[in-house]
């Protein structure tokens, strides 16, 4: 009897459980798949000098401001700030109010035992800005504030004592920051949207010591899932349960180009919807373009660039091939604010002191063929470091050294005192990746220099090693690119500004007083034709000095899977994953096919 009763009870319980599970249905987990093309650095905002680390960290951390997602131009809007700052009449004092519900989230529950930590406050931002200024941190972001904030340079010089107040960047109360500048510097607001300024809780460093950079804690829409993350292979982010929240922008806010791209119906459908849309983001580290491409074709990545070797079979006359269109893949072409270049270490006793040698090497580099081979013509040859679309870009300026002319190069080399390359040592070119494409680029450079009579040897290395060696001034020759942090020519000119030498962003360690003076003069001016003229002049001085062998300004050719719904090309800023949505049903159907 007892046995029968037990079995009946068991059946009732099981039936109940089945009923509950049927009524709820399986919970759909939306997973977005993205990638970076290089290994990333530790998660320290003060050292976040590269796009790849910032891209992932951008989903975890948050700044005071962010760029509007659906605007055609780059316009700031508040993020941790409650509103845009109030600015004093003289343009020197900025007062910024913070929201009180931006909580740090600790997935490991070691720093904040409940996971949801305390709310980020003004002191966190003050601490983070001080970390940028602290010489002990050798921050790659110090150039943003060097000389601009009242008392910050002095604070750094006088021992960087964190207990002392910096006059120009202080907390008026727990949720109000006051920023005082030395001179009017309108670009300052852009810097407050960059990952360099993401607040870090001091408790994190106290808990982990030097290991804190492996355990990022932020206030963003996602947190790092330590269990599923495999360093140097994939970084998995999960939806932050304690995120303060945000909504998709209203349809009226969208610019014309964005409306054309997404469609008015999509904008209307998403307007006001709660972000983020996907539950999980997987950031793969894919150094090989062939792997990126195959993953995209298999539907394992939701959007991708087009590798150079696959371009001709994918895009014909600026349009996708029928095969791609039949799969529902979409092509999105956009100009980018960037510049690629090979740089000379100007601290090198031979390269740094001989302008004609650098000019010769620049002319021996086959810019035109590089554009064809490595970019399939999807770029514009760079004449100076300022890309088109920014004030200071002069469309009429033709850089005489940014074009291939081997005869002239040989003549310049002879004038430099090294006819046929005689007397020159073998130069070392630092690599940053073991990918085939990068190897081919380095081979191309070496071959070009060989034609001139100059021997160049490749030094292998990965991305973190490359950056570390630049910081130590150990790279004799290297190749790199710079993408805009904010839409202003100053962001590019600072790459050649003397005081920004490595570990700052001036990897070439170029230092020309005339250039520096022009840069400084323009830095404190409002955007105007007069400032554009100053910047154009500075850029042309650098072009003549050849600390770089100019590369290209690229065009972005991105392919989107049909199930990716809300992607807008954003060249500047980070943390846009929260706006992305996918149709998982469509993905399942398409990938099954």
């Amino acid at each position, binding site marked *: 009897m007892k046995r029968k009763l037990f079995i009946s009870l068991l059946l009732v319980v099981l039936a109940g459980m089945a009923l509950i599970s049927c009524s709820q249905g399986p919970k759909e987990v939306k997973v977005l798949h993205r990638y970076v093309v290089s290994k990333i650095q530790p998660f320290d905002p003060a050292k976040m000098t590269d796009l790849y680390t910032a891209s992932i960290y951008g989903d975890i951390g948050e700044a005071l401001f962010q760029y509007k997602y659906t605007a055609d131009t780059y316009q700031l809007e508040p993020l941790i700030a409650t509103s845009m700052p109030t600015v004093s009449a003289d343009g020197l004092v900025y007062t910024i109010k913070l929201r009180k519900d931006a909580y740090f989230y600790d997935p490991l529950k070691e720093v904040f035992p409940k996971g949801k930590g305390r709310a980020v406050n003004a002191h966190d931002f003050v601490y983070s800005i001080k970390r940028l200024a602290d010489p002990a941190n050798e921050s790659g972001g110090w150039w943003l504030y060097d000389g601009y904030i009242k008392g910050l340079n002095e604070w750094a010089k006088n021992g960087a004592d964190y207990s002392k107040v910096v006059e120009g960047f202080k907390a008026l109360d727990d949720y109000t920051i006051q920023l005082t500048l030395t001179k009017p510097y309108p670009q300052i607001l852009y810097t407050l949207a960059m990952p360099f300024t993401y607040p870090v809780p001091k408790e994190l460093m106290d808990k982990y010591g030097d290991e804190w950079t492996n355990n990022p804690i932020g206030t963003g829409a996602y947190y790092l899932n330590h269990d599923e993350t495999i360093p140097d292979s994939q970084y998995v982010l999960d939806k932050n349960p304690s995120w303060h929240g945000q909504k998709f922008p209203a349809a009226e806010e969208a610019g014309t180009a964005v409306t054309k791209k997404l469609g008015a119906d999509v904008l209307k459908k998403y307007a006001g919807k709660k972000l983020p849309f996907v539950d999980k983001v997987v950031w793969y580290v894919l150094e090989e373009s062939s792997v990126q*491409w195959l993953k995209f074709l298999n539907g394992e990545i939701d959007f991708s660039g087009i590798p150079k*070797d696959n371009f001709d079979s994918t895009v014909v006359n600026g349009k996708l091939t029928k095969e791609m269109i039949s799969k529902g893949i979409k092509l999105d072409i956009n100009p980018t604010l960037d510049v690629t270049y090979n740089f000379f270490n100007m601290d090198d006793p031979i390269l740094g002191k001989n302008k004609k040698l650098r000019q010769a090497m620049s002319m021996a580099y086959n810019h035109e063929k590089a554009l064809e081979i490595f970019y399939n013509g999807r770029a514009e040859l760079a004449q100076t470091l300022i890309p088109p679309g920014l004030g200071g870009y002069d469309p009429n300026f033709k850089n005489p050294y940014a074009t291939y002319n081997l005869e002239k190069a040989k003549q310049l080399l002879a004038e430099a005192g090294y006819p046929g390359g005689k007397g020159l040592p073998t130069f070392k070119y630092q690599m940053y990746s073991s990918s085939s494409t990068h*190897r081919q680029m380095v081979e191309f450079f070496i071959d070009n220099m060989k034609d001139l009579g100059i021997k160049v040897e490749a030094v292998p290395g990965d991305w973190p090693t490359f950056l570390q060696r630049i910081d130590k001034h150990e790279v004799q020759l290297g190749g790199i690119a710079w993408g805009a942090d904010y839409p202003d020519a100053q962001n590019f000119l600072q790459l050649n500004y003397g005081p920004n030498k490595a570990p700052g962003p001036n990897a070439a360690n170029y230092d020309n007083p005339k250039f520096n003076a022009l840069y400084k003069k323009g830095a404190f001016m409002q955007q105007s034709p007069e400032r554009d003229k100053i910047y154009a002049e500075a850029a042309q001085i650098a072009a003549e000095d050849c600390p770089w062998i100019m590369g290209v300004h690229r065009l972005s050719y991105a392919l989107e899977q049909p199930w990716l719904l809300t992607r807008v090309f954003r060249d500047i800023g980070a943390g846009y994953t929260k706006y992305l949505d996918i149709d998982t049903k469509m993905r399942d159907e398409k990938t099954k096919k």
Partner: protein
Amino acid sequence: MLEKTVSTSYREGKSPFTLSMLRLWRNRLAMAALLVVILYILLALMGELNIFHIKDMASNNNFDLRYMKPFTHIEHLFGTDNFGRDVLSRAIMGTKISLFLGFVSGLLMIPIAIFFGSLSGYYSGWFDDVAMYIMSVIVAIPGMLIILSLIQVAGRSFFIIAFAFAVTGWVGLARVIRGSFMQAKEFEYVLAAKNLGAGDFRIIFRHILPNVFHFIIVRFVLNFVGVIKSEVFLAYVGLSIIGVPTWGTMLDDSKLELMSGNWQNLIAATLFMFLFLVSLNIFGDALRDSLDPKLKNVV
């Protein structure tokens, strides 16, 4: 005239080595394989001496002739690559690198293997313990991991790569030599030599080593196979030498090019590698069979 009925003339006996070579000679397949190997060596020499401008065609960029398809032009039989370089010439130059790596790593590996293998096999005792410990440690770590680490630390040059292969490759041979020495030291000819007053050095190098030398020769030949495969792997993960054509870098390039229908690099490198490895394997096997006295009567 009277003559003796018994002739004084007699046939002189052949040495075991001559007999082995005769056995090898009779193996037609092995001889064909050897011919292919010799052809590869000649090709490598031709490349190095720039005969028919092989070296120039392999390294000089010709951007007007990028990605020529194979068998469409007599001057570029296997077509051209991304930089307009002749793919056939690059494959020939790749032969040189493969031969160099195999040869140098073999030369570096053999003395180490002989030293450890013969001494530990002959003396046993504490030396054997230490040698075995070292060998076990090296075997326990994946060979490619040691090679990758060495290249990262000591830099990337063909000599370093060859050295790295030698460091990981000597253990197998040393173990074989050790085993053979353990067996041989109990044989009568060794006891006889000892009784006649021969020293250890003479016994090891004059008496026992020649009897196990066939292992070393075979191992030297087969080492090429392992080294070539490893070089390809290294190049595939981006750790080969920049600016020098090797079969590995050609295959590495081809992984980008295949999707766009350019298979020149793949076909040339694979064909060259396949023929060479097959020939080496056939020849190596035949050599082992012919040098092994136990197999001399096996049909």
